[in-house]
């Protein structure tokens, strides 16, 4: 079957199997930053944004994407770079396999709460599993990123 959707800002029309999962279709479309970790929507490695909200590509049927706006890590490379700098500064990207999904969740959190508390960070990212880092260092990195963003925003507002 044919579906049409917006992928990282571009209109896409593709032929899919009716039982295809979105993750496989996205990876076929060269969005290889979307990672498969568990096949059951549990680990968060495949986190993308669907119509502006985080979603798990490994458990969403691709057919449902018809008419939707899909955003993957490939569509937010600049922001990923900015957040990524904080992660690599702490060494908490480690194997890196969970990083793109985690960054997609961080971006959503940022949209929802300008300067989240530690508890809010943990709450919003609880669905993004990481086996390497133990999370503590990731919290340090995300805290530092959020603090710097918040400062920047506040500074700009003062200037305006």
């Amino acid at each position: 079957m044919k579906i049409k959707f917006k992928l990282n800002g571009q209109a896409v029309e593709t032929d899919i199997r009716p039982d295809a999962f979105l993750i496989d279709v996205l990876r076929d479309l060269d969005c290889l930053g979307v990672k498969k970790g568990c096949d059951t929507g549990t680990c968060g490695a495949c986190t993308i944004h669907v119509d502006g909200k985080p979603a798990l590509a490994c458990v969403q049927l691709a057919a449902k994407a018809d008419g939707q706006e899909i955003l993957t890590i490939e569509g937010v490379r600049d922001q990923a770079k900015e957040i990524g700098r904080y992660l690599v500064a702490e060494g908490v990207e480690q194997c890196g396999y969970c990083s793109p999904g985690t960054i997609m969740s961080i971006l959503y959190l940022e949209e929802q709460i300008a300067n989240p508390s530690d508890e809010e960070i943990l709450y919003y990212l609880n669905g993004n599993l990481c086996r390497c880092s133990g999370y503590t260092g990731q919290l340090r990195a995300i805290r530092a990123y959020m603090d710097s963003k918040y400062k920047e925003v506040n500074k700009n507002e003062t200037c305006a």
Partner: protein
Amino acid sequence: MKHVLNSPPKKDGMQLVQGYPVYTDDIAPKNALIVKVLRSPHAFARIKTIKTDTAKKIPGVVCVLTWKDVPRVPYTRAGQCYPELSAYDKFILDEYVRHVGDDVAIVAAKDEATADKALRLLKVDYEILNPVLDMENAIDHETVVHPEPELFTHINVGCEPKRNIACEVGIELGNLDEALANSDYVFKARYNTQAQAQAMLESQRSYSYLDQNGRLTVVSSTQIPYHTRRILARALELPRHQIRVMKPRIGGGFGSKQTAHSEFYPALVTHLTGKPAKIVYSRKDVFRGTTSRHKMRFDITLGMDNEGMIKAIQMDGLSDTGAYGEHAQTTFGAAGKKVLTLYNKVKACKFHGRVVYSNNVPGGALRGFGVTQGTFALESAINEACRTLNLDPIEVRRMNMIKKGETTPLINMTTKGAGDEPINMDSCLLENCVASGMELFDWDAKKKKHESLNQDSHLKYGVGMAIAQQGSGLPNIDMASATIRLNDDGFFTLLTGSTDIGTGSDTAMAQIAAELLDVPLEKVIVHASDTDTTPYDSGAYASSTTYTTGNAVIDAANKMVTAIRETGAKFFNSSPENILYKDETISCESSGESIDLASFSNKIMYNMIHTQLSVTGSFVPKKTAPPYMAGFAEVCVNTRTGETKVTDFVGVVDCGTPINPNLARIQAEGGISQGIGMALIEDVQVSDNGTLQTDTFMTYKIPARRDVPNIRVALAKGYDETGPFGAKSIGEVVINTVAPAITDAIENAIGVRIRSLPATPEKVLLASLEGVRVAEENIETSSSC
């Protein structure tokens, strides 16, 4: 130092976080055949027939292979140096399936849907056999897991397959009976550790193709490219020179990829069809078709005097290796030798036990590699004895643990090629780890605070601690090598066979090289893990890369500096002793001339001398260089639900010089988190017929962000003279103290001792209710009197 003891970001970090295609499945050829494995639904069965003709007729199915189509050569999948200590007990496919998930048939098709369809249409007629699932009953069970005559071991490890014994391990020092008889107090208890899954986020996967010369090339998410080449060659009956194994970026290992798994199937398909082939394990494939931590049981007997001096330790154990014996002997042996050597003041100690075959999913390597299991048992027993005798566990550790400069003959007895000379632990900072950990944790103040917090509350706080060690590579077994080339424009290529599995070891190796080559880090390009182009390395296991490969890089870098000076002498028409290399400049002291490295490399390559400087260094660990750790846990137990929350964890690690302190700290934080999972949550569970009840992340839970506290780690300021710039290992030691510290904290909080991991809410609640029931019965009995 410019690079060592600094924390530059990992060289690959920015590419990884932005999701660039760098992992195995990202770079596999798009036209690769999709390979899938049909897995056994039965724990033990003989395949009577497999009907393949319907599956073969599906358009797009390229091959269907059963046990009749593959070479019948026994081998071990364990990634160990040859000759391995693991039994050769596995065939690619066999007439017998020995665990739920064991491989039955291989299918290759043009796409995933076709391969799945073919799997569904394979009709297998099984003769279901009676499985042996309880390790306690495995020895001399009527079911023999490996009746086949081909099974053999290279080295006598006490393997008796007809009795379901994979191996036997015994270590003994002094006269145990006498030491126990001379003890004021003898403590005995039984401890069980569960099968834990590695749960790396990237599953096993690999792809293969024939190169331009018709050689089989396998790209795999592996920790052991060189061992994989050797194992594949044997299994496929190909000469080793016909195989190349490469490793791209790896999405985590933790030991899961120290056993070859996914490689056989696409490699065989490519070998037979000439076509590129790929397999990506589903999470179910990982749980059912690979390995988990060996389940172990230890009976501990501890002899102490009233002051807390430990006189005797006996560890009598049993380990379940499941259907195949990968890493059976080595994990179990480590549970003895790397645990008992912590307590060097005993009069006698004895470790004995067997590893048994069963029809469970095989045991394998997982961070800590047996030491984790042994540490849980012994540290728990010492903590329990302390509570019974009302002794301070920290003081008892101070009295009994190994200290700087000390040794025990056990180290000689358990280290290959060690000789008789005492091997002193000159870099051991365990004492400092305990002292500074206690301070950082605020042990005494916390205990005081809990007294008031716990009053009249259903939330009870408690504290516990434990100590542990591990190794740094395997002395006289592991070997690493590194090649360094000077390129034009003055940058270096560092070729190593070591396998960065996400830890950042490529970056640490570059830091070591850059330090000695006196260049900025970006001028050391690391290329690793390609059996055709990089020099041999035994692999990323046994906490070896920083220590073993690091030393090989030092050897190579020193040789490169010598080569630069020798070539500089030719360049300046002088002799090497007059040539100085520093700060990317080669200068001739006698003539006062100098040239920068970039111009020098351009000139010697393009204009004069016409050479490329290339050197290779290598290293074999000679002396054991154990890292040490003290771990302190604070828990809060909800007495209404039995739920345990870790509210604080402090780990102080002696890893010698941390080459990259940030990356070292994350190893510790990650290991502690994995330890919390083992202590409280994780358990590979099997039903009565051997079916896995936990084969997805929905049923097998690993710690999420809110399951771990803010882990606090400190690195002791250590230095081991045999390590690169003083470094020892850190990757594995960090998991060992966690479970015994947490279960001790639970006892401190609510008076309940969990001796069988994990300490789930159900177990804790039942045990505490049992305690209440016993107490009530005692009251009733006394009142009736």
